[in-house]
């Protein structure tokens, strides 16, 4: 299980029937939600299989960005 972000590419909010289908993915946990996105903890292959039937969605691994800092530090 890993954390993924699902993003709906349509101009409106994600359709509720799509959200229901995604939530039904075996073992999936929704960690956060916005009108166009879901942050989930899920198995990659199960998630990809579920999304195949739902056009307009993209799937992305979670990654992070550091806070910029120009202060010199000991390495």
């Amino acid at each position, binding site marked *: 299980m890993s954390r993924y*972000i699902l*993003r709906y*590419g349509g101009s409106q909010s994600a359709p509720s029937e799509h959200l229901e289908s995604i939530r039904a993915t075996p073992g999936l946990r929704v*960690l*956060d939600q*916005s*009108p*166009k*996105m879901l*942050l989930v903890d899920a198995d990659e292959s199960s998630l990809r299989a579920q999304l195949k039937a739902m056009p307009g969605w*993209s799937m*992305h*691994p*979670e*990654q*992070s*960005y*550091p*806070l*910029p*800092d*120009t*202060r*010199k*530090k*000991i*390495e």
Partner: protein
Amino acid sequence: MAQKKQQYVLVPAAGLTASEANPKQMQFFQTLHATSLAANKVHSVSSELGALPVKVLDSIGETKPKLIEAAPEDLAALRASHPSVRILPVVYFQRAVMRYEIGPRIGSAGVKARTVARAAGGISITITSSKGGAPVAGALVVAFTNFAQRAGAQGTTNAHGRVSLNLGGSSRKIERLYVYPASAFWPGLQRNLTLKSGMKIPVTAIDLAYVDCVRHFYPGNDLSFGQGVTVGVIDSGVATDHPGLVVQGGQNTVPGEKPGDYGDNGTEGHGTHVAGIIAARGTPPRGIRGVAPAVTLRSYRVFPQGGNNASNYAIAKAIDAGVADKCDLLNMSLGGGSADTLTEEALTAAHDAGVVVFAANGNDDRQPVSFPAAFSMCQAVSAMGRKGTFPKGTESYGSVASPYGKDKKNFVASFSNIGSATDLTGPGVGVISTVPAGFGVMSGTSMATPAETGAAARLLATHKNILSMPRDQNRSSAMITAIAAACKKLGFGAIYEGKGTISV
């Protein structure tokens, strides 16, 4: 000096097919397609630099992506003349075969230097105010015995201004000594000194009437500048109780935290500093004034409480929220991770919704422009400085480097990332702004970016015809065109400054 021409792929801002809803974009793609079929394959693109020759090597179709050849120094002008077109580098993928290769390895000498520097044996010094000698608490002190190897010792001063540095004796020769006070003082830099226990190291108190580089390039900021423009700061939060700032709303998009907590996240005040450069409403000598004090300021916090990294989810959610809240400009003084398609999708959606995003080039000492600034849908900002806009003995002196501008006092900051993705340059060396505890000085492309965001807000406030356009890609294109038209080159060269700095 002209650089060797390189290959790029031109694609529409959204998707892979030019949009009929954007006649300028459609005409450009059709023209380039025709050019690809012509004998010399060269099309002259009209720009503020004059006619830019673009060789069209291939076209997938009339409305489809094009493979072009262009000079890297022309890209900023090309982006400015066609803001709804993404310019992507050609990427080559290697076979997934693992091979061992000869390469540099870290020598034992370097490891030893660090080990010795961290051995026990403290040198206790006191950081004091240059005005009156009061101790300075909470200052980060970094002593480099070998700056190239980043070897030495560091610590933070206690309530008496004292710090003990584990340098292996009671006296040690130091190449560089940096002092970073939390607030109220300029960061200090001393070179080539012998540090001994009992020494007092003074730092310069901030005079809020001092003309730093932001105030030099954007002087006389009237409290009405930027009126009618909404700016979202996507960062570590903005101190909502700072007397010099008016935060009109926002959202915390960090999963698991309260959405309404978009104030400062309790670290060193990065987002509060960024916000003050754009919108501080104080009056020197009791406060400071931002570049566009009348903007409607919104805070979108993406960095968690305590200072961990921001996730691409939090950033994309913040961009979406800024678009939904009808921000005109978004400031992203962050970056440095690898490119990710989620953030690219959110940035493209923002462009399609009439919002312009400014992003910091990054502070990796002349490395290529970092993501997301390197993405075509961002206005990528490098950092410059100006001699005479920081007091003697301050850390800002360490950022002076070539190239220098037509005015030899101007320089591109040594820490700034550069490259053909650069769109703008802004003042970012030794910038006084708001921090949760009052006022502080910071340097970085993080500071240069809000200076240009603020300048853009100030400019666009005078273009009501653009602000009143429907919120689509034609609006963001019109904003970028207006910004490009207001840019002034400082003479650094395109890979350092793009179109230059916004002159308002």
